[in-house]
């Protein structure tokens, strides 16, 4: 499978070059064409069912400019309109949940992974949903969600992006999620992450700020206990996006109480995924050469009083 993926990545490179002449032709790049080009060049086999695709907007519209982001919040959409950008490529949902909109009439028919307990998704008459939908329609925006397939790429673009943001690419140690960085303390590292990723209150840390660390494991996005149990024994500290308090958080606490000099930093899911989407913007620049493409930071959703 690994080899196959590499072969696909190679093929994708060739396809990218082949895509360039398209730019010189006078065929306008529509939202649907952009989606097709993503599907054909993503570098991994396209899987169905998938949450990836055009989630909202007119797919026949000509793309003027593209914004790539971890989450298409209203702030991002408003920024796009100011920038005369009409296509947004978003990792996370635009309409507040896995369904990207109100759930299908039969909840059993809902695709995929689900998540939160209880609530069945956004109500069709919800005022925030309707206002966002209206803003998107009035401004001629379209949103493509690119999540499942961007996550499948190797090497892991989210770990790679995070490492690049921290200037750690040269410290890669074997697997694409492991980096051996110059020795620092958990406290200094948490500060450095908060500064470079422009984090507000979303960053949370388990472990002694004075503990020395250098072997770093990266688990951006959401991760389950098994990933931490595999990674923490071979490193000093895991930098994660989102984990559960009764799973990886307690595991890291227990490692510390057992006398291990270890720690866990949680950045928040969206913040941890932002650098991976910056890499996605770089990739889309090559794939959609006829229009400007840029990355926009969705920012940390959280604050707390000082």
């Amino acid at each position, binding site marked *: 499978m690994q080899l196959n993926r590499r072969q696909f990545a190679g093929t994708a490179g060739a396809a990218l070059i082949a895509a360039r002449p398209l730019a010189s032709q006078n065929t306008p790049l529509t939202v649907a064409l952009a989606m097709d080009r993503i599907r054909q060049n993503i570098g991994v086999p396209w899987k169905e069912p998938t949450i990836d695709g055009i989630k909202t907007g007119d797919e026949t519209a000509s793309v003027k400019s593209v914004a790539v982001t971890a989450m298409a919040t209203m702030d991002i959409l408003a920024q796009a309109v100011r920038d005369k950008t009409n296509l947004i490529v978003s990792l996370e*949902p635009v309409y507040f*949940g896995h369904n990207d909109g109100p759930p299908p009439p039969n909840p059993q028919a809902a695709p995929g992974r689900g998540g939160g307990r209880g609530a069945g998704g956004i109500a069709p008459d919800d005022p925030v949903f309707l206002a966002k939908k209206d803003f998107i329609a009035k401004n001629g925006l379209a949103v493509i969600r690119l999540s499942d397939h961007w996550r499948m790429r190797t090497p892991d673009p989210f770990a790679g992006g995070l490492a690049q943001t921290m200037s750690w690419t040269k410290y890669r140690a074997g697997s694409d999620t492991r980096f051996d960085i110059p020795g620092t303390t958990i406290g200094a590292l948490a500060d450095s992450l908060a500064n470079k990723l422009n984090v507000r209150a979303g960053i949370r840390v388990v472990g002694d700020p004075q503990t020395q660390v250098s072997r770093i494991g990266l688990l951006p996005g959401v991760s389950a206990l098994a990933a931490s149990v595999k990674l923490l024994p071979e490193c000093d500290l895991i930098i994660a996006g989102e984990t559960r308090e009764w799973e990886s958080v307690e595991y890291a606490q227990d490692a510390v109480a057992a006398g291990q000099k270890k720690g866990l930093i949680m950045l928040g899911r969206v913040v941890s995924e932002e650098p991976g989407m910056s890499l996605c913007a770089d990739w889309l620049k090559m794939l959609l050469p006829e229009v400007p493409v840029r990355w926009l930071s969705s920012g940390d959703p959280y604050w*707390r009083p000082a």
Partner: protein
Amino acid sequence: MTAKEVLALMKQNLGSPWNESTYRDVFHAGNPDIEVKGIATTFMATLDLIQRAHAAGLNMVISHETTFWSDRDDTKDLTADAVYQFKTDYCLKNNMVVLRFHDHAHSHQPDFITMGVVRTLGWTPSQGPGPRTYTFPKTTLGEVAADLKKRMGTRAFRVVGDPKATVSTASVAFGYGMGRFAPGVELVMGGEQPEADSALDLSSYVRDAAYFGMNKSQIILGHNISEEPVMEDAANWLRTFVKDVPVQFVRSGEPYWSPRNG
């Protein structure tokens, strides 16, 4: 009295039927046949908590949450893990035993969870639209957040929304749950929840509501902060029928610190 006998007394005194098929409310570490010298009730049987209970001479830990890091305390893939081995050995060597008390802390009437948190908040159950809704004199999200920080001693809770938004009605859930924006609700609170790609992503929802100036706010307390007070109520309840050994509420504590506010 053995740990097993303590569990038998809990079943007798619960006041509602004990679900014998529970996979949660069973012994998860140590030997249930050991003689109990003292009981520590807590939110989470972390190794640190077990070590502190041991130092205090309390060899039975009754914990709301997990011992081995997953809801089922499934240890089959953990047997080679150094932390798992350390924690297991520590319990056996020091005659510590851990019982989980989760489902039946919720089924006890009144629900321990609600009692504990609402008392700490100082809010009065309501008058508001629906269960677990609370109304209070009109204030701002910023004021509510500052008050919570003071009352609950949290270092790492998280807030979404405009600090100047007015609030007088909150929908509150605990643990892995979040309140609902029923009509009239301006603030939802809960312990923890997925940040994105769940059935309903309330953090991004509140963020976008704030953009439109709609009056919606969210406070994510943390799982521990939202549920820890329950186990103080559980300790009080245990003392009504466990008379021979000390019963203490011992905080496992908020697991995080944060280098940033903002």
